């Protein structure tokens, strides 16, 4: 009997990277990538940035052209969903009724949007941004709209708000917590971004929950817990994501707000690895379990997963990084800054270019940089090398951080 193929479930950035890295690690057997979305793996970050703004066509979102998959011998089954994993028979069950045997399996199923749960949330004016189809839908809806309400002041909601303001729409951002991007950045950076959006004409409402969405003569009314009502033609909800871990959980793999994997991306079944947004993983950099939603995590963890599939396990220790583009301001994040015990400013927020460096347990653990790319890159290198830095050093512009990072 011929050996069964390696199968990768989920055609996103992590899925593609697992396939590419398997070939790099020398796996020469059959390889199959199964993805529910009917298109070649594509980049999501532009969906709330340039692509939504209309300055990019869809063809430019694909990571690789079709010829890449042919060249590497990656068989594609797109538009097909894996509905179950039969671990006993080592088969995946697909939405088209087929059962496919695997020798090893990688789960890169990503996340899906958390849906608004308030009354009226199923109104067609309510949009989300996760897939290309979502972004196309929102792009078309915005073209007809004058008033946008964004529910959730996280990265995606704020990027959409910035795009819509550039298009001249009236924009309200409603955030339940008392500051923007609260999960990821420090209060100082949140405040900078609230001021930035207000300066661009966004009505930013903090500590405000949405209680209901009601149909109106034109569009909808978004009602808040503070008894306000905001009229909108389009509502975008960016209130977080849910890991696609159901097929893993149903197959008896450990799941906890994501598929639980160890530092080498192994699930509780030695033949199955998982990588990307869908994993609750042991993060070597942080030294504890975490679920991350980023390009960096998708790529670096996928490489680790591929290594494990090829019996070349290496722990996942790479430094996390992330970026967000809002207006002409670039936010770059290195490490995991939150929660921190001390934050140290470098640069000048009033001039629109600064970084906050964060310290936890007396050690540099991350930095948020706003239009300060050199600080960001220096911090990534310092964190990767584990260089001991003091708050005084990072706060002193006379100290050349890149010089220290270069060693």
């Amino acid at each position, binding site marked *: 009997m011929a050996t069964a193929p390696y199968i990768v479930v989920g055609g996103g*950035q992590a899925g593609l*990277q697992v396939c*590419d*890295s398997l070939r*790099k690690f020398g796996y020469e057997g059959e390889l199959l990538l199964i993805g529910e979305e009917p298109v070649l793996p594509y*980049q999501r*970050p*532009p969906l709330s940035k340039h692509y939504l703004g209309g300055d990019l066509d869809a063809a*430019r*979102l694909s*990571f*690789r*052209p079709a*010829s*890449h998959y042919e*060249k590497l011998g990656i068989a594609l089954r797109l538009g097909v969903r894996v509905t179950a994993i039969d671990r006993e028979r080592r088969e995946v069950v697909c939405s088209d009724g087929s059962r496919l045997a695997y020798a090893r399996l990688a789960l890169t199923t990503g996340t899906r949007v958390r849906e608004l749960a308030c009354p009226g949330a199923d109104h067609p004016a309510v949009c989300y941004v996760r897939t290309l189809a979502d972004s196309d839908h929102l792009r078309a809806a915005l073209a007809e709209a004058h008033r946008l309400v964004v529910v959730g002041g996280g990265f995606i909601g704020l990027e959409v708000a910035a795009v819509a303001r550039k298009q001249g729409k009236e924009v309200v951002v409603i955030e339940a917590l008392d500051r923007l991007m609260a999960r990821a950045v420090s209060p100082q950076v949140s405040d900078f971004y609230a001021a930035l959006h207000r300066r661009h004409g966004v009505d930013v409402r903090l500590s405000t929950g949405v209680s209901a969405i009601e149909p109106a003569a034109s569009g909808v009314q978004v009602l808040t817990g503070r008894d306000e009502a905001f009229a909108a033609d389009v509502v975008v909800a960016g209130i977080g994501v849910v890991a696609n871990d159901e097929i893993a959980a149903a197959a008896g793999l450990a799941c906890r707000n994501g598929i639980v994997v160890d530092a080498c991306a192994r699930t509780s079944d030695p033949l199955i690895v998982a990588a990307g947004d869908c994993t609750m993983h042991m993060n070597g950099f942080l030294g504890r379990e975490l679920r991350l939603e980023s*390009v960096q995590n998708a*790529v670096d963890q996928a*490489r680790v997963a591929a290594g494990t599939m090829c019996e070349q396990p290496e722990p996942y220790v790479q430094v996390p*990084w992330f*970026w967000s*583009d809002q207006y002409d301001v*670039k936010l*770059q994040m290195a490490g995991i800054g939150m929660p921190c015990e001390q934050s140290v400013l470098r640069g000048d927020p009033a001039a629109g270019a600064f970084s906050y460096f964060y310290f936890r347990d007396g050690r540099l653990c991350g930095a948020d940089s706003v239009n300060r*790319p*050199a600080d*960001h*890159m*220096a911090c*990534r*290198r310092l964190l990767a090398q584990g260089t001991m830095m003091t708050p005084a050093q990072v706060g002193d512009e006379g100290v050349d951080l*890149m010089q220290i*990072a*270069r060693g």
Partner: protein
Amino acid sequence: MPKITFIDVNGNSRECEVPSGISVMEGAIQNGIEGILAICGGSCACSTCHSYIDEAWMAVVGKPDEIEDSTLELALDRRPNSRLTCQIEVTDALDGLVVHVAQNDG
């Protein structure tokens, strides 16, 4: 359409037609050039599209801006003619450009 010659780390050379308006990185990806990974998709965040611009072309292509200059700090073997190809837009003026792909890990 401008023609760009990519020379990969193994010395393989290939001349490709690349439409104006996209980046040199995108041109490399479309043509399956080895070694251009571009994991951040051209957001100047990863440096995995790092290449060396043929000396004769440096004056035409120009120098990196501040953000690219910073991102280049992540590159393995940075040289005076290092550029991130995602930050170079293809124009008719680049017809004939020669790009040496750097060692990009992964």
